[in-house]
């Protein structure tokens, strides 16, 4: 069981109409490891994350998440995945507590967990204010809380530290950092930061996996080429 990789992708392909967003992507991520997905805008990073989050279905190839093949077993595995998306996925007219309680109730999580997370993220003082009045950093903190409510085994992090000051970033470290113990897939606009945290790197260019390997193996030239 411990040897089952958390993520297995083989020849994963996804189109949008005539455009191919992901073409024949293959990678294996061990349980508890951190995968950094690098590439410029349009390379397919978001599409990949959304497939892993079970929001998109693969068009061909295999995607096996936590031992469950997608899309057939998407429903079964959804409860074990947390997604910090590009959008916070919070209702602007509701406050932080109401938003988190909504997500908690959808998952059968009790309110106590909501309160503990709010405290852990330093948001318990601002939990009664409508989200539209909060700064982007605070919204991001709430978004992270939302993603980890159900203690997921797999964390998908799309720019998790966007808008966060160092203090906030530190607060959230136990929730989404390595210490959280979950398998993590993260993307970042800052490749160096992502590389520093990664056990494995997937480089995407025009939907193709042009690099799969350890961070140390990625040469400076190859890195530049990814973002060219």
């Amino acid at each position, binding site marked *: 069981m411990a040897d089952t990789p958390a993520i297995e992708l083989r020849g994963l392909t996804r189109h949008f109409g005539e455009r191919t967003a992901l073409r024949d992507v293959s990678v294996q991520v061990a349980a508890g490891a951190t995968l950094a997905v690098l590439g410029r805008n349009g390379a397919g990073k978001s599409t990949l994350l959304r497939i892993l*989050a*079970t*929001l*998109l*279905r693969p068009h061909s190839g295999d995607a096996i998440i936590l031992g469950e093949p997608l899309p057939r077993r998407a*429903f*079964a595995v*959804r*409860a074990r*995945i947390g*997604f910090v*998306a590009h*959008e*916070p*996925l*919070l*209702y*602007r*007219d*509701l406050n932080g507590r*109401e938003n988190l309680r*909504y*997500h908690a*109730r*959808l*998952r059968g999580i009790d309110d106590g967990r909501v309160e503990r997370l709010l405290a852990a993220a330093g948001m318990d003082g601002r939990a009664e204010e*409508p989200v539209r009045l909060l700064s982007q950093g605070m919204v991001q903190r709430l978004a992270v809380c*939302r993603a980890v409510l159900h203690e997921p085994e797999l964390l998908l992090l799309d720019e998790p530290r966007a808008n966060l000051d160092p203090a906030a970033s530190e607060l959230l470290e136990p929730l989404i950092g390595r210490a959280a113990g979950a398998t993590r897939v993260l993307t970042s606009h800052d490749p160096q930061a992502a590389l520093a945290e990664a056990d494995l790197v997937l480089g995407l260019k025009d939907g193709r996996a042009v690099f799969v390997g350890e961070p140390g193996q990625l040469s400076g030239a190859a890195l530049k080429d990814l973002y060219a």
Partner: protein
Amino acid sequence: MRTALTVLRKDLLLELRAMETVPAMVLFAIVTFVIFHFGLNRATIEGQLAAGVLTVTLLFASMLGINRLFVAEREQGGFDAFLLAPVDRSALLVAKAAALFTFLVVLELVAVPAFGLLLLGPPLGPRLLGLIPVLALADLALAVIGTLVSAIAIQTRARDLLGPVIGLPLLIPALIATARGTGPLLAAHTSGSPPGKWLAILALYDAVFALLAYALFDFLLED
């Protein structure tokens, strides 16, 4: 079921906070009554004419609600939030239809008395009991079709336009049944109970489209 209740609570809470949709629907209905007064140049109406005016006004006011139903989901990531959760996706249809139904009931709580005050010739009081089953079934039709059509339209570019344009023809049988069901009720001399035939037709319409919507809704959400 628990999922549908959770989503419904969230939607009712949002509406209470923002107070956008229901007040607009109510104002729209009342203004429409005023417009009908001038358009028809009548101080009072009764019978089938009154039934038509009431039904059409409620129908068009509901279009406002239908247009707004999924906007927050689309613009604030509500769809993703829901789709990430390990829940039965048809619960979203049930929740949204229930929310729309609630908005329509609140609308009618104000608009029907307003109608009695402004336009209806015969007194409304004795007729209310008979109106309730007809309007309830009509609201169900509007809720089901409205949610279905709104879910379709929200993913398109022309979203405010397509919703009504698709929904109105689809609702015509329900409109016919509602108008013909209330016509005898609003006549000067009425038995006070709505014609069973039209109630049955409305119920049949509701059943068919509710089942169909429930079966098809998942396909609108998947990707």
